[in-house]
């Protein structure tokens, strides 16, 4: 076999700030194969949650990811409310939607900036992050935090939006809109950016379906999926908005989808604020006394795609099993299609284009003994371990009935 160079992207690499490893097998400048490894930052969140009460779990899942820190609590709340059969008051639904959409705006602006940085366009990087700043200020006004907002609880939200804050929200959004438009024009009309992004890292509709990719990655390839519409939750069925879909599937299309989604999000928030303004201040949560035995699945559309939480409860105050699937977990696998055959310059851009979030995705693959360097557990062993555990759980939970 012809010898190939391995160009490592990671575990520490200026391309992406999180620890992850992509092995690009290169023949000259052309990437012929790619392998990826995560697991450098595995924190065992699912296991931790089994020892926390439901109220505490919200704070843990919020810290899965710093950027989409509302999507995980949102999905978890959806799962818990399915188990407890709780009906959330409308006011709480609107507040939840506002938080989630603000998060989408700041996350997409962050991606635009990073994408600019990845192609060496640091001016876009700095400008996008500057225009993202008012959104973070807005978060501070509404929730008290710039990040990790601690707004969610079972049955509602923790804080109400003050009546005098409505105008502030609308004012800041009005300020963000022209700036986002300016940024979009600067990026979308730049011929040099066209050269770098059009036709790069193309994912066809079939690739998306094969790899089950989600979120803007899928929507940029003409796959019309959006959990907000397909599995309605919170206030999304109560406001007017549309799902942005483009057909090309390249990096440029992904940028266009994200830009247009920013404007959709602004429109959703404006409608929610109008509805809040019309309704008199009322309940923002319902009291949930206890969580019955059962299981529930919650989904939420994070800025990167579908977040899925599955919870099994046994009537106590903590989950028996909590399964989390973050969108990057499925999106990262598409690199096999988008990067192979590209040059290294284009492959690194294609890596960044799905807006991967590795700390959401962390999976442990191997366990080594630090002294003897012997492998204690590998992927298969861990899966066996997990299957045994699931079987024991099943026996304990449902054994009496079956």
């Amino acid at each position: 076999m012809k010898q190939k160079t391995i160009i490592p992207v990671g575990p520490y690499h200026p391309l992406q700030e999180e620890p992850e490893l992509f092995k690009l097998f290169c023949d000259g400048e052309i990437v012929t194969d790619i392998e990826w490894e995560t697991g450098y930052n595995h924190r065992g969140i699912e296991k931790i949650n089994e020892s926390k009460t439901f109220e505490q779990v919200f704070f843990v899942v919020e810290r899965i990811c710093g950027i989409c820190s509302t999507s995980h609590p949102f999905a978890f709340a959806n799962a818990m409310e399915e188990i407890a059969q709780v009906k959330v008051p409308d006011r709480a639904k609107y507040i939840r939607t506002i938080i989630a959409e603000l998060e989408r705006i700041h996350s997409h602006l962050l991606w635009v900036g990073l994408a600019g940085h990845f192609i060496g366009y640091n001016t876009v990087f700095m400008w996008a992050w500057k225009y993202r700043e008012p959104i973070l200020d807005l978060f501070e006004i509404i929730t008290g935090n710039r990040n990790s907002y601690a707004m969610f609880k079972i049955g509602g939200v923790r804080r109400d939006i003050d009546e005098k804050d409505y105008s502030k929200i609308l004012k800041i959004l009005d300020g963000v809109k022209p700036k986002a438009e300016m940024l979009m024009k600067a990026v979308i009309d730049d011929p040099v950016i066209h050269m770098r992004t059009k036709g790069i890292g193309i994912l066809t509709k079939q690739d998306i379906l094969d790899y089950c990719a989600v979120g803007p990655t899928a929507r940029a390839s003409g796959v019309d999926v959006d959990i907000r519409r397909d599995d309605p939750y919170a206030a999304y069925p109560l406001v007017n908005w549309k799902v942005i879909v483009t057909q090309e599937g390249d990096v440029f299309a992904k940028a266009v989808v994200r830009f247009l989604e920013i404007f959709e999000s602004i429109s959703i928030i404006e409608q929610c604020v109008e509805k809040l303004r019309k309704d008199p201040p009322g309940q923002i949560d319902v009291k949930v006394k206890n969580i019955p035995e059962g299981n529930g699945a919650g989904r939420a559309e994070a800025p990167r795609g579908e977040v899925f939480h599955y919870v099994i409860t046994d009537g106590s105050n903590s989950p028996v099993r909590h399964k989390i699937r973050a969108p990057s977990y499925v999106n990262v696998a598409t690199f096999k299609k988008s990067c192979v055959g590209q040059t290294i310059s284009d492959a690194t851009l294609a890596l960044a284009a799905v807006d991967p979030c590795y700390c959401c995705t962390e999976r442990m693959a191997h366990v080594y003994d630090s002294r003897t360097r012997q492998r204690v557990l590998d992927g298969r062993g861990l899966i066996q371990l997990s299957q045994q555990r699931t079987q024991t759980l099943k026996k304990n939970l449902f054994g009496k009935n079956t």
Partner: protein
Amino acid sequence: MAGHIFYFLIFPGLLFAGVGGGLLSWFDRKITARVQFRVGPPLLQPFYDFVKLMAKETIIPSNAAKTVFLLAPILAVAGACLSSVFILLPGFGISSGFRGDLVVVFYLLMVPSLAYIIGALASGNPIANLGASREMKLIIGYELSLLLVLAAIILKAGNTISLNEIIAVQQQQGAFIGSISGMLLFIVSMMCVQAKLAFVPFDIADAETEIAGGIFLEFSGFTLAMVKLAKYIMLLVLPSFVVVILLGGFRFEGIHILWSVLKLLGVVLLITLVRNTNPRLTIGQSMRFFFIWMNLFAIIAIVLAYFGY
């Protein structure tokens, strides 16, 4: 002999070009920062960087060719100093009596890039090797354009290859940029300078987010300080070269001093703005850019210059 050593080490060589280049590097960084809504570094930051790097440990990769790896950055500095002597001496109106300096300068300007390539290949790092191969391709791309620019300059200056005479012709007849061919040549030479300085959109060989520093990846401590110094010097030398061949050179009497400094700063400002308003190209795109467009521009300029426009 002593005079030559003075030229090389003090003025306009190592010391002068190093300090001047450092200040220009600050100018570049400050403008970049202001464009990006940042505050930017203090005036002496480039020198702090240099001194700090000198004090740091120099790590030599275990599979590197040690001597070559350590000598390559020094070669880069030496080449940059020599080219600064050959460009700035005529620029300051000091005649060295040597009449073929345009050709020598053309070769000397290539030395730092070649030295980086040698250092990168000697480091034994696959990513640095990749960066070196990219730099080689880039050199192949822009050198022909630069050569065509120089050919047009020679034609315009009346078949002379002496920088002193080129400046003298411009000071009598007005700077070459005043003509149509001169403007075309200015565009082409600015692009070549951008590529030689390894600034966006041509920072392909050290693309940080792709190959993590590429050709400069394994340099650290003393060697990295030398690379930085060579880059500072080149940031003074290359814009000066453009000023000398196209903008009428420098003059040091009365108001002309201010005018000369403004010309230099103007060229650096242009380079900075180009680097802040463009994304990085891929190596294929940049080679196509030079081979097709820049060479075409340069050839048109030669034809125009031949007919006296």
